[in-house]
């Protein structure tokens, strides 16, 4: 019924992992590049903000299903996701190409 309420602790840990990826890994921000990364199978994990329009969200999930890539629904809107990435703009979706030192790909994918 109701999705498990995300505790503050796990939310912070995602933010920490994301910050580590921003520092040490490779990523792309934005819908067009996310689709590009899925098409050429470079993306390893896709993170989508919660106020992403439903059609776009479903499209990204479909691409990710075809590419067998995990999708993480971020608990926050595009403003929050932008802040979590350390950027001063809104980020609706992002794709992680190389996690660097972070373990975000290993610990996040099962999460819907």
């Amino acid at each position: 019924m109701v999705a498990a309420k995300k505790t503050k602790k796990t939310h912070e840990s995602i933010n920490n992992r994301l910050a580590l990826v921003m520092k040490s890994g490779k990523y792309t921000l934005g819908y067009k590049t996310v689709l590009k990364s899925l098409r050429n199978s470079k993306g390893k994990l896709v993170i989508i903000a919660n106020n992403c329009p439903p059609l776009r969200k479903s499209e990204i999930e479909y691409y990710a299903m075809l590419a067998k890539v995990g999708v993480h629904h971020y608990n926050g809107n595009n403003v929050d996701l932008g802040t979590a990435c350390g950027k001063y703009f809104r980020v609706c979706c992002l794709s992680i190409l190389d996690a660097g030192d972070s373990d975000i790909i290993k610990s996040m994918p099962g999460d819907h």
Partner: protein
Amino acid sequence: MVKFLKPNKAVILLQGRYAGRKAVIIKSFDDGTRERPYGHCLVAGIKKYPSKVIRKDSSKKTAKKSRVKAFIKLVNYQHLMPTRYTLDVDLKDIVAADSLQTKDKKVTAAKETKKRFEERFKTGKNRWFFTKLRVYSYNHVVFAIDWCLEIGIEDLDFT
């Protein structure tokens, strides 16, 4: 992490004259070529879908209704929507990268593709591929209904 834009994948064209038509990837050029420095692929698609055949139809009518018109095109990946369906029709020998260079080569390739598509349609397999994509237009915004059902939106929010 799995490459999915591979030969035999069914796709839907999103832009151009053939927008909304279903096609199958014959050859993909992931890194592009000198003339097209972007990922693109050679597709063979359906220009004119076969009509609905009912039991009452005479054999002459059925033959007429089961005709398919095909096209061959090089399309940018950005202008395709990949689907989870595949179409196992062997088109590699008829359609090659040079089929699009002269008009008569293109016409012969399209005619051969048409024949193969018609054979496949008559066997009744790959029914999804040979049905038109149902499209709904609301206030000048076009939604592909088939498509939305496919990716799981039942409730379209027209905002």
